[in-house]
């Protein structure tokens, strides 16, 4: 019933507006179209300047309301550079924004149609045009230089002491892998994936069909299927990013970083967390605070629920966490624990696991 009522009200409002509009058209014809047009011109000229004032107030007001809701201080060392760039870019763009918008609405007000105005026939002026070609070009060059300097830091090699964690996206969650005691990731191959016991397809056994040999480095790898990752405060962490099905994206708003997870093409990302999760809880005053990993690339109908958590902890807590974990191999084959633990011999030097175990590779940051 209320739906019909709402529809009736809307229709009524439409009819009223329409009748007023029609009536004003008749009036303008009676008054003389030229006169009516000039009146309308005055009204719109006034609205231009009114919009400018209200708009500027609105920009300020919106900022006052929302500035507290954008993220506070960056939680990573590298993110500080992002924030600094945001600030510089906002200053540059802000100046241009205010100058051009003010002129854009002030000129129409000032130069609205008046009797006997003689317009200024001004078809071109080379000096002016060169001026406003060169100035933006210089300003943009500065922004490019700052941007690229940071870009190469962000995408460059991670520091040597970096913790390496592998994160694999799947519909709709994240799987984390740590290299275990030998500090090396074992190889994996997607056809070995078994959602019950081997979610990443680690190569634990020989398989003639796949032309693969068991990789001993995979026996002590720790796999966490709970979408939670542990990293250490003030220690750089390098993520090796994979996907098991479609494209996902590791979005880390608090660390100001993100990178796609592409099936078949591993990517990397590194950053240095500055605050532990519990420090952030205090800082933000939010007892439920977590560093959330948000999937930022549409990956299906559960995209919005694809959340991971990064727990930033002290080195001691991290070591404790690592100690508590059982290698994934032993979770899958409890009977081999602990006496049947594999010898850590004959390991290849790779840190990630290329396909089929044929390509011994470095981490691909690029397409190939």
């Amino acid at each position, binding site marked *: 019933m209320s739906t019909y009522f709402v529809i009736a009200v809307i229709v009524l409002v439409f009819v009223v*507006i329409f009748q007023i*509009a029609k009536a*004003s058209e008749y009036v303008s014809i009676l008054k003389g179209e030229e006169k009516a*047009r000039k009146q309308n*011109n005055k009204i*719109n000229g006034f609205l231009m300047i009114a919009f400018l004032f209200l708009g500027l107030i609105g920009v300020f007001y919106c900022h006052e309301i929302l500035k507290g809701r954008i993220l506070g201080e960056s939680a990573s060392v590298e*993110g500080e550079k992002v924030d600094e760039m*945001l600030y510089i*870019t906002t200053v540059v*763009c802000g100046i*241009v*924004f205010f100058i*051009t*918008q003010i002129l*854009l609405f002030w*000129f*129409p007000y000032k*130069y*609205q*149609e008046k009797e006997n105005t003689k*317009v*200024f*026939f*001004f*078809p*071109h002026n080379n000096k002016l*045009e060169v001026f406003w070609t060169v100035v*933006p*070009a210089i300003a*943009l060059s500065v922004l490019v230089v700052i941007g*690229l300097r*940071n*870009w190469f830091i962000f995408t460059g090699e991670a520091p040597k002491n970096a913790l390496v964690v592998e994160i694999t996206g*799947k519909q709709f969650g994240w799987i984390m892998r740590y290299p275990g005691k030998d500090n090396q990731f074992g190889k994996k191959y997607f056809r070995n994936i078994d*959602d019950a016991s081997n979610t990443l397809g680690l190569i634990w056994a020989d398989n003639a069909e796949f032309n693969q040999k068991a990789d001993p480095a995979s026996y002590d790898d720790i796999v966490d299927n709970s979408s939670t990752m542990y990293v250490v405060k003030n220690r750089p962490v390098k993520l090796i990013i994979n996907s*098991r*099905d*479609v*494209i996902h994206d590791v979005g880390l*708003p608090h660390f100001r*970083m*993100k*990178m796609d997870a*592409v*099936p*078949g*093409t591993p990517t990397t990302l590194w950053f240095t967390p500055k605050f532990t999760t519990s420090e952030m809880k205090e800082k933000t005053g939010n007892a439920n*605070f977590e560093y959330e990993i948000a999937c*930022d*690339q*549409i*990956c*299906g*109908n559960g*995209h*919005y629920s694809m*959340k991971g958590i990064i727990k930033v902890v002290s080195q001691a807590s991290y070591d404790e966490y690592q100690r508590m974990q059982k290698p994934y191999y032993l979770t899958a084959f409890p009977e081999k624990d602990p006496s049947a633990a594999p010898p850590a011999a004959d390991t290849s030097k790779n840190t990630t696991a290329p*396909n089929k175990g044929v390509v011994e590779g470095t981490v691909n*940051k690029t*397409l190939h």
Partner: protein
Amino acid sequence: MSNEEVLHSQTATGHVHDTDHDHNGHHHHHETFITKYVFSQDHKMIAKQFLITGMFWAVMGGLMSVLFRVQLAYPDESFPFLETLLGKWAKGGHISADAYYALVTTHGTVLVFFVLTAGLSGTFANFLIPLQIGARDMASPFLNMLSYWFFLAASVVMLSSVFVETGPFSGGWTAYPPLSALGSASPGSKTGMDLWLIAMALFVVSSLLGGLNYIATILNMRTKGMTMTRLPLTIWALFFTAVLGVLSFPVLLSGFILLIFDRNFGTSFYLSDIYVNGVGALPNEGGSAILYQHLFWFLGHPEVYIIILPAMGIVSEVMSTNARKPIFGYMAMVGSLFAIAVLAFLVWAHHMFVSGLNPFLGSFFVLLTLLIAVPSAIKVFNWLTTLWRGNIRFTPGMLYSIGFVSMFISGGLTGIYLGNSALDIHLHDTYFIVAHFHIVMGVAGIFGMYAGIYHWFPKMYGRYLNNTLAYIHFWITFVGAYLIFWPMHYEGLAGMPRRYYDYTNWESFKMFAGVNLFITVVALIVFAVQILFLFNFFYSIFKGRKVTSQNPWGSNTLEWTAPIRPGHGNWEGEIPEVHRWAYDYGKDGKDFIAQTTPVGAEEGKH
């Protein structure tokens, strides 16, 4: 058949318009309802067909956005009327995630391609090119007609995808594989995706037929005296738009063909190392998902200029006419259009900074992307200078032109953030990008379209739109657009991802619930005002105030020398000859000097 006669005499003589063309105008065409309104080869009727089909899609796309905005504003409430409207897609009055993603995807696809490409450049290229260059019709009226019918076929197929059991495609308008390639990964990637691909392929054909025709017409069929440098800026803009489309749409089609192969014929162009939940490991190996992104964005980026260039052309023309002052820096305007058209092909990978693209390669795209801000800045400054010391008439078309420039500034500046990869790494795929492209491409494109509709409606239908409704329409839309998209920048700065169905479980983003509600309320009001515009449009076609003077805006361009309601062939008698550029407003104390006026001996030079 007389239409044929016009066609043949036209193409046979090419651009040479001599007195022997006289009979065209006077000849009384035998037109049936079918040839006049349905299978018409008259460019003006085809333009109206594009416009009205585009408007249909604008309403559909807008309605879809209203529906998914309701979900974002009220994630926990249920609205029984939604179940009435959407059936199983909104069980219990609550839009399902499947439906939400389908709505988002279809909204994006139809607005980008069907409204802002076909509806904007399809309408105005068809309507304005022959009228403003002084031709009786397009180079090939028949291909022109086919262009519309392929567009309509694309529309029908796209619309039909809404009614299939597994729903329309729901993987975002960019349709990245593997999601778009694997029916097992998402219900929308089943039949819905096949229909989406067919619709888009038909649309590409439509664009190519149209584009080739526009280029051929502009290059070959200009009237006597209409040199390239005397063309109105609308025509220059439409020319570059057509060139962009012709060069980039085939690349998109090639990307789609590979996708069709991956979907249906077991190839692995885009697929590798995939294990789908509930299905198991797929046999595909060796493909690259990023390859598709290159092919897609090689069109996808020029596409945004395909949208915005016609709007820029329209705005330049409308603004100069209503400022009663020449456009400032005509050659710079043409030059910057050209620069944008060239750079459009060299910036596509800025959509892929965080896709796994080689970062070193990415750095070139940062440079080239920020370079494109220079011609854009030139255009803005030139528009501002055009307004300076003018004698401005606020016709509805002029208001929308000023609104366009405002939106283009606001949205263009945020492009400087996003084009810089080191900032994009934070802002990519958040609401910041949603705000950016809606303002600079969506709203600005639509504003250019409205400027064009309000300005040329009298030429199209021989009647005026109601001014009061037009002013209400403009001011509410303009203010509303800012209220909708401005706060989204803040959501994006907080890292709030786009394309989320529900934010309530996210500690990092749930503080924006109030903002989302506010945006939805404004969106509802703005949508209602667009309905008001539609009403004004269709009412005025039949009942609007009649145009009584040939040149109601006091404009210089050729279309205003044609009869108030031109027939097929546009001019009765000879095609007018052109003696000057299109922007002699306020020269030597004269309000305007039409392009057909010969240059006087005493006249000052510009």
